[in-house]
């Protein structure tokens, strides 16, 4: 804890060398990169997706396959407004943290920004080109018009991102690889030839986000019933139960954390 | 009726008694048990999903070589019983005879073993 606090802000040397190695192998395909604590997050071009995995596995020794998943950076106005309804007064109070630098005590992710260009101002970037996202809204049309998207660490150019994480079981360093996908036709090559375990994760990602994995041997539903329509983890997929009836849980939640804090303060 | 046949008549009696016990209790339980068949109840159980196929599915029986060996050794046992009963009468001669018989069968078993037939597939 004390020792962690000191090492936390310094870039991890093993991570840095790993990232350098990765950059050397991948060349221009690396679009963005960051090191957070002991995690490397890189963004590669989607055409280099399989190559990145192959390099990670064969050259960097990141043999342990952790997961594949996706991101939908679209702002979901229905969800945001739901919070605002209940937490309206609170939102005003802490408005400052929304777009400025976080004001919380200590900047935790203390990122060593190796590639500042894409990661520097993701929100500004997102604000610059919100148009493709709103155009790109695929089938099940959302009830309300999406307002745009904001991307996260290592940046992003489009609404959809596919991400995977692999780890070296000997060096104990993990690498998260992201790739931006096309908004209208999210499509990327399958990794099941590189990491056998990618099979099921790609099925899940396809089912939840609608990302197509070219060359996947068996891209069928894994959780949801066959014939299910829509991609539930996309932000524009309505959470029907919430649409029909407001969730009562949102209202009675506030005191819990506050009480705990007060109790501690009293002791 | 001779005593010999009589002693086997008991077998028939006993079998009838067993039938009567099961049948009687089933009849008794018919009086008190409910009978409300539904489609779900009458479907065969396959772990909670609709059965795949027709129910009368076919399966491979691959232990026929064991069955052949079994028949062979069961016949041997049939031969062993009379010999075992009359062993004292036959004496050393019978012993050697049966020893040869058993050894031949054992050799056969070991041959089958060596050929890898004694593997359940």
């Amino acid at each position, binding site marked *: 804890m004390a020792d962690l606090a000191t090492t936390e802000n310094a870039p991890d040397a093993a991570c840095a060398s790993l990232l350098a190695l990765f950059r050397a192998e991948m060349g221009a395909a690396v679009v963005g990169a960051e090191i957070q604590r002991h995690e490397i997050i890189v963004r590669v071009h989607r055409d280099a997706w399989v190559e990145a995995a192959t390099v990670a596995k064969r050259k960097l020794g990141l043999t342990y396959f952790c997961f594949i998943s996706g991101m939908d950076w679209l702002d979901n106005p229905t969800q945001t407004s739901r919070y605002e309804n209940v937490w309206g007064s609170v939102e005003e109070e802490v408005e400052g943290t929304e777009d400025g630098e976080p004001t919380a005590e200590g900047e935790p992710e203390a990122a060593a920004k190796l590639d500042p260009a894409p990661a520097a101002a993701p929100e500004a970037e997102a604000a610059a080109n919100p148009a493709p996202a709103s155009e790109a809204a695929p089938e099940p049309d959302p009830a309300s018009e999406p307002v745009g998207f904001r991307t996260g660490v290592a940046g992003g150019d489009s609404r959809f991102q596919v991400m995977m994480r692999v780890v070296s079981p000997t060096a104990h360093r993990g690498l998260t690889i992201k790739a931006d996908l096309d908004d209208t036709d999210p499509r990327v090559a399958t990794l099941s030839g590189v990491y056998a375990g990618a099979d099921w994760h790609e099925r899940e990602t396809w089912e939840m986000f609608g990302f197509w994995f070219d060359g996947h041997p068996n891209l069928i539903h894994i959780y949801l019933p066959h014939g299910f329509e829509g991609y539930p983890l996309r932000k524009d997929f309505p959470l029907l139960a919430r649409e029909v009836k407001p969730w009562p849980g949102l209202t009675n939640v506030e005191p819990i954390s506050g009480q705990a804090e007060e109790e501690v303060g009293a002791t | 009726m001779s005593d010999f046949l009589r002693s086997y008549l008991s077998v028939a009696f006993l079998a009838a*008694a*067993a039938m009567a016990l099961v049948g009687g209790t089933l009849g008794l339980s018919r009086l008190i048990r409910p009978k409300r068949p539904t489609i779900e109840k009458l479907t*065969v159980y396959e772990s909670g999903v609709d059965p795949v196929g027709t129910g009368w599915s076919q399966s491979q029986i691959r232990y026929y070589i064991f069955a052949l060996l*079994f028949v062979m050794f069961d016949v041997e046992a049939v031969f062993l019983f009379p010999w075992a009963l009359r062993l004292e009468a036959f004496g050393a001669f019978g012993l050697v005879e049966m020893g040869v018989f058993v050894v031949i069968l054992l050799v056969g078993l070991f041959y089958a073993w060596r050929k890898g037939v004694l593997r*359940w597939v």
Partner: protein
Amino acid sequence: MSTILHPIMGFVLAYWQQQVIKLAAILVAIPVGGLLLGYVFLMKMMAHMQSRLGPMEPGGFHGWFQNIGDAVKFIQKEDIIPAQADKWVFSLAPYVVVMSTFLLYLVIPVGPDLVVSNLSVGVFYALAVGSIGVLGVLMAGWSSANKYSLMGSLRAAGQLIAYELPLVLAVIGVVIQSGTMSMQGIVTAQQKFHIFGLNLGGMPFIVTQFPLFIIFMIAAQAELTQPPFDMPVAESELVTGYMTEYSGFRFLSFFLGEMGSAFALSAIAATLFLGGWYLPMPQSWINNNFADYIGPVILLTKVMFMAFLIFWIRFTYPRFREDQLQAIAWKYLIPISLLWIMVTAILKVAF
């Protein structure tokens, strides 16, 4: 042979009267025996060994009501026959299983005069009717139109192939030593049997036939489809195998058959290897029929001991795989039993 009630009532009954009384006795003995084993071992011993809570509750003291409650429950449960099943074979199977169990009791002597029918081929007969039960299992499994049942019954058939031979061969050693196949004759032979000139008023065959005794018990365990040989029922794989589709009393009758067979096979093992109803006792007790009174008690004690062994192993061991059962039977049990038969025969001829 003297008549069954002669020692008690002092007069000779007609043949059919004797049969009626014997059958009545067996009709009482089997459910009671099955219930006894089910109660003492399956419920109480299991509950204590496995620290189970449920079977210790019903009725108060040590859950004495558990078995009765179970029986009542099964009798008043709905009897479901799947629509796809072969109804005739399906409903006939429990009869076959129970019948096979009943027939086993025919030859078990419980006293010098107390035996339903002292067949001259007693042991042979017992082994033969004991295997009829597998026929019932096959019928049940096949007719259910259920895959688990089918696989369970196929396993049962495969198991029959594996254990039947060791069971038969284990008996042959006893037959060689006693020179008879009659169960009563085997008990008598053990009264006269002594080794090294050490006459203690008889000696059980287990002394000389210990390997065959072990083989017999293993094979009996398999015949009863008790763990570690319960592949045909295998709850965690085949969901009780051939019994999957059975419900109500039909299901209970399989259970009754299993417990009754356990009782009968324990009795046969006790008779063959432990001297049956006989303990070293004065010859006069046997002559004046006193042994008819204490014989059942002695046999019951031995049977409970054998059943204890069976159930003890049942609660302790995991299940074998089918191929492992075959390997054990063919690679160990059969060669060893054949060898021991030859050893017995050589000793018999030599001395």
